[in-house]
């Protein structure tokens, strides 16, 4: 067994790090306060080929391997969770099209998603349906050569800036995935502000009233919108969140190492106190463990191993929980300064909490993981 990044992966990591340090870190608090991501930043991200970079070269992408993509998410996660969410939801749509799109959808959309000409978002959650996602209430009915969609989607990351949405709706009473363009008549996009974290992720509520879309905008087949199409997207999303959470925790650690090397109490630097060292040690160990989990998930993805799906769920669950603890301890270590917007750790704390809720809450991950290892007993009395 060998766990070691390749030379190319290390080089790419350095490229991501330099970009994030220059373009994201200095402005991340401002994005958070203004609750928006500047279009210039998104343009630069796209120009660098970072968007949906795992799309194969034959479809206009970079053909980036998943481990490298994890490194990208870790670096962007260390800079801003809101920026990370752009990679997450845009890539979720791209991945779903790559896996389940028709040849026309693939050839038409993937190059535009890879170049950033079109920004994608993922519309599953609704005001009354979250975790029980296969029960979405949005409907789609065939009317001639079109599907007509009705419903409301809520908490849609990048909804304010997206050009195209993957919408999960009930068609013939079964969860089904559709592509809806932002300028579809009947689609109203309402910004959501005032969130705890991911404040610059430009969330929106989508009101879908009699939206008529071409029949060809069906993705996959009727009844497979949740299990397979959203399943593919969420699997990718969980991997991004896992790696992004590692980045977030790393930012907490770095902030704490710097702060505890300057701040003195009781005549010695904070880092000299053993209880502070304990918190720093837990961060270091947690980050290493979570990173290994996402590396493993990424490796399994690169080798197309079915175990990669559970590995991503485990990595997301562990890494997000770890990030919340790291961020909470980072605020603690900073004392009152940690509660002030003069330091970034309060943002890390707010953003970390969101990591435990998105792409399937951690309770949903726990349920999935426990079923995977067969904790639940087989029902008696079956045929």
């Amino acid at each position, binding site marked *: 067994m060998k766990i070691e990044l390749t030379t190319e992966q290390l080089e790419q990591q350095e490229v991501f790090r330099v970009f994030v340090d220059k373009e994201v870190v200095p402005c991340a608090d401002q994005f958070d306060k203004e609750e928006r991501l500047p279009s210039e930043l998104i343009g630069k991200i796209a120009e660098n080929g970072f968007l949906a970079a795992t799309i194969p070269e034959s479809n206009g992408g970079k053909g980036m391997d998943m481990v490298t993509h994890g490194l990208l998410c870790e670096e962007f996660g260390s800079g801003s969770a809101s920026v990370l969410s752009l990679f997450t939801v845009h890539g979720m749509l791209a991945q779903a099209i790559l896996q389940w799109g028709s040849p026309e959808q693939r050839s038409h959309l993937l190059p535009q998603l890879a170049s950033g000409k079109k920004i994608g978002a993922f519309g599953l959650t609704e005001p009354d349906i979250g975790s029980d996602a*296969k029960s979405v209430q949005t409907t789609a009915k065939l009317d001639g050569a079109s599907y007509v969609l009705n419903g409301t989607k809520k908490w849609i990351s990048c909804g304010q800036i997206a050009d195209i949405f993957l919408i999960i709706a009930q068609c013939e009473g079964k969860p089904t995935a559709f592509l809806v363009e932002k300028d579809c008549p009947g689609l109203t996009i309402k910004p959501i502000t005032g969130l705890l974290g991911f404040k610059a992720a430009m969330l929106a509520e989508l009101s879908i009233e009699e939206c008529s879309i071409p029949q060809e905008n069906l993705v996959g*087949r009727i*009844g497979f919108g949740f299990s397979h199409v959203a399943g593919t997207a969420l699997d990718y999303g969980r991997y991004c969140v896992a790696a992004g959470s590692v980045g977030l925790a790393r930012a907490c650690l770095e902030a704490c190492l710097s702060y505890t090397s300057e701040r003195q109490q009781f005549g010695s630097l904070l880092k000299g106190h053993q209880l502070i060292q304990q918190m720093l040690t837990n961060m270091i160990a947690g980050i290493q463990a979570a990173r290994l989990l996402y590396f493993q998930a990424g490796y399994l993805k690169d080798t*197309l*191993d*079915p175990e990669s799906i559970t590995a991503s769920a485990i990595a997301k669950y562990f890494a997000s929980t770890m990030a919340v603890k790291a961020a909470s301890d980072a605020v603690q270590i900073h004392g009152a300064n940690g509660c002030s917007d003069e330091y970034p750790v309060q943002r890390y704390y707010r953003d970390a909490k969101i990591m435990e809720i998105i792409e399937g809450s951690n309770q949903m991950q726990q349920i999935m993981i426990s079923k*995977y290892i*067969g904790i*639940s007993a*087989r029902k008696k009395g079956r045929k």
Partner: protein
Amino acid sequence: MTDDTIKERIRTFLFKHIKDNELSNDENLFASGLLNSLFAMQLVMFTEKEFQVKVENEDLDLKNFSTINAIDEFVRRKL
């Protein structure tokens, strides 16, 4: 590849998820209630990797994946 080898390979994979040696070839996998929501995609990945076939969007049909027999038939059609 004989029918039995395909079925045995499917069974070996399924056993990781459903710890049940008595699983019959025509038992509906999705009706057991024991599989988690990740399983459907894992089954697709398994089929693609193990048998080197591509599951296309038009193959998305429960009839292709609901039982060991169905997966076996699907794989043999694709090979």
